[in-house]
């Protein structure tokens, strides 16, 4: 306590403080200045202008990711899921065919039936490169016999979405691709353990899932038939570090041997 008091008085500390203050004043950008204005004088319009574009963009994404309950009641679960994926810009595959349907320049009436029909089952849904979010899954969730799901390059897909999938399709899903979604973390990958019938899982380029390799080992232990692609149990970094360790140990051994001579 005594020492701190002495230091408090010395000029060096005070100079540093003043410098810090100067620096903080210099680095104030325009947006921060506006924010400061907003805080001090309450110009709420300025803040609104700053966030206007961002909010409009997000609202348009949220508008697509709603639960369309009336459509579900009109079309039935599988047909609704198929039309929803096509409208989102994804692809879908029907039961018994290997062709992936997608909405090009055609109208949706030419590809899918517009009224409820029986014996219509969707087997595969490909939502890669779409803006699918957690809430949008409620349109797909009701499919009874979905086997293939692809979520490649989805920027807004997160752990909540993954946990929802793993419980909704826990009995049927066989193929899942979640490559290159940066919002997936370890906590989301851990819920995949509930997918009992999973046969192939692709998870490449998940930069935020730090223990992907370890979780893939756990999944392989727990699920019987699963093959996991994209998670090398020993990554190149790990191999390098092991190599370096071995080299260091060798050097030390040599030194000991030489000193003994």
């Amino acid at each position, binding site marked *: 306590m005594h*020492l*701190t008091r*002495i*230091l*408090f*008085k*010395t*000029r060096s*500390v005070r100079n*540093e*403080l003043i410098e810090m203050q100067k620096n903080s004043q210099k680095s104030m950008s325009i*947006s*921060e200045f506006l*924010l400061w204005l907003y*805080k001090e004088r*309450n110009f*709420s319009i300025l803040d609104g202008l700053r966030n206007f574009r961002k909010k409009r963009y*997000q609202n348009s994404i949220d508008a697509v990711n709603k639960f369309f309950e009336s459509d579900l009641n009109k079309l039935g679960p599988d047909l609704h899921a198929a039309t929803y994926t096509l409208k989102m810009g994804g692809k879908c595959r029907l039961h018994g065919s290997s062709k992936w349907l997608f909405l090009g320049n055609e109208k949706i009436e030419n590809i899918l039936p517009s009224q409820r029909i029986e014996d219509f089952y969707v087997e595969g849904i490909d939502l890669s490169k779409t803006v699918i979010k*957690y809430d949008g899954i409620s349109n797909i969730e009701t499919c009874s016999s979905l086997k293939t799901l692809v979520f490649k390059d989805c920027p807004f897909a997160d*752990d*909540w979405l*993954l*946990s*929802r999938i793993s*419980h909704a399709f826990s009995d049927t899903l066989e193929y899942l691709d979640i490559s290159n979604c940066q919002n997936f*973390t*370890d*906590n*989301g990958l*851990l*819920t995949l*353990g*509930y997918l009992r019938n999973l046969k192939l899982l692709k998870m490449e380029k998940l930069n935020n899932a730090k*223990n992907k390799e*370890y*979780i893939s080992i*756990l*999944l392989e*232990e*727990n699920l019987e038939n699963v093959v996991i692609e994209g998670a090398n149990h020993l990554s190149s970094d790990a191999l390098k570090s092991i190599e370096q360790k071995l080299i260091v140990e060798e050097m030390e051994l040599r030194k000991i041997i030489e000193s003994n001579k």
Partner: protein
Amino acid sequence: MKESNIGPFERIRVPGADDPKNALEVFKIQCENFRSLKKIKRVPKQTEVLIIGGGIIGSFVAYWVKNTSPYLNVTVIEKDSNYPKSSTFWSLGGFRQQFSLSENIKMSLFGADFMKNAKEYLKCGKNDNVDLEFNHDGYLFLASKKSADQLYNNHKIQLAHDAKVRLLNKDELKEKFKWINTDGVELASFGYQNEGWIDPRKYLLAVRNKATYLGTDYVNGNLIGFESDINDQAILNKQLTLKTALVDTLDGKIVPIKFQKVINAAGPWAAEVAKLADIQLPVEPRKRYIYMFYAKDGPILNVPLTIDHSGVFIRRQGLSNYYFCGLNQSGDKESKNLDLDHIDYDYFEKEIKPVLIKRVPSFKDMKLVNAWSGYYEYNTLDQNLIIGRHPVHQNFIFTNGSSGHGLQHSAAIGKAVSELIIHDAYKTIDLKRFGFERVVRESPIKEIEVV
């Protein structure tokens, strides 16, 4: 630098500061200096909303008030901003919807919705790296023959509120969670979505950062007393209003702060705060132990926060076979010794370990690694939240007595209180039933627990 230019004042230095070995120590002292300089902030003389207690509930009240109307001044008084005795910091951080009262279920669903969009809600300007690391493993209740009927009834209520819960019988339980020994389990309830757990410290700091970013003042201090403005008119109208709070700012000053609304978010010490305003509040601090153990062959995948019908709970911590456990007991059996440093290790050996090994056979060779204890606010009337205005002191608002559910309900509590301050009525969730009037009338509303 020449010797002659240095005055006598500048020559005072830390002994041994020139020695490069001590450079780190000197640097530490300097850092401390900067921090203490930052901490000495002007204490506001008057504020619209005064919040007592800077834990998760107090921070959430500040956040929601500032979020909905940034014009209001909000001040939070926190005893110690390192939170050594805070019940938020030492809690387990569980989130669940499996309650029997509709208000509690609604509050949990609101909390889950907040968590879903937490990145959007809690980002501060350019810094949007808010990852709260919510664990989605869910919540599992195991009921014996006695409590199975109650579990079923609760399940019906939860389904009516669109909670994502599923009942499992003995065989389904065995199939889904291979690591559980199902002896003595009649029925299980598995919350598979919106349920799980979180790191409570990360959560608190994120909310607190956002609240300060929005302009809340956090003041280090201790509340000493209230002063009410007594005049004839007020006594005639029977509306006693508290006007100023006396705050000891821990550096030898006692500062009066004028306020319009005061919120009691003092957690376990809520009764002491209420007593300063001559209000009797049936809330007291209780202590609960949490033990951390290591089990070599323990399960990692598909391990929800499991609560046995005896009250023992387990929660996985990280991916390297560490687990937290503890025991939920009825209030009378808990220890009366409120010293946090005193930890009862026999309690673990006698009461928890046998149940754990019986329930999960792979915990056979478990090793106790660590243990700690934390307070929670225990409502002696009905173990439920007390929220809302005091009938006489109209500007005194309670948020007390959550009895261990405070963290998961905090987002909803904060929202409700902010609505009470700004609109004078509840808008999103109606919490009138949880008001202080039930304490006056002594008519408890009890949550029917399965455990």
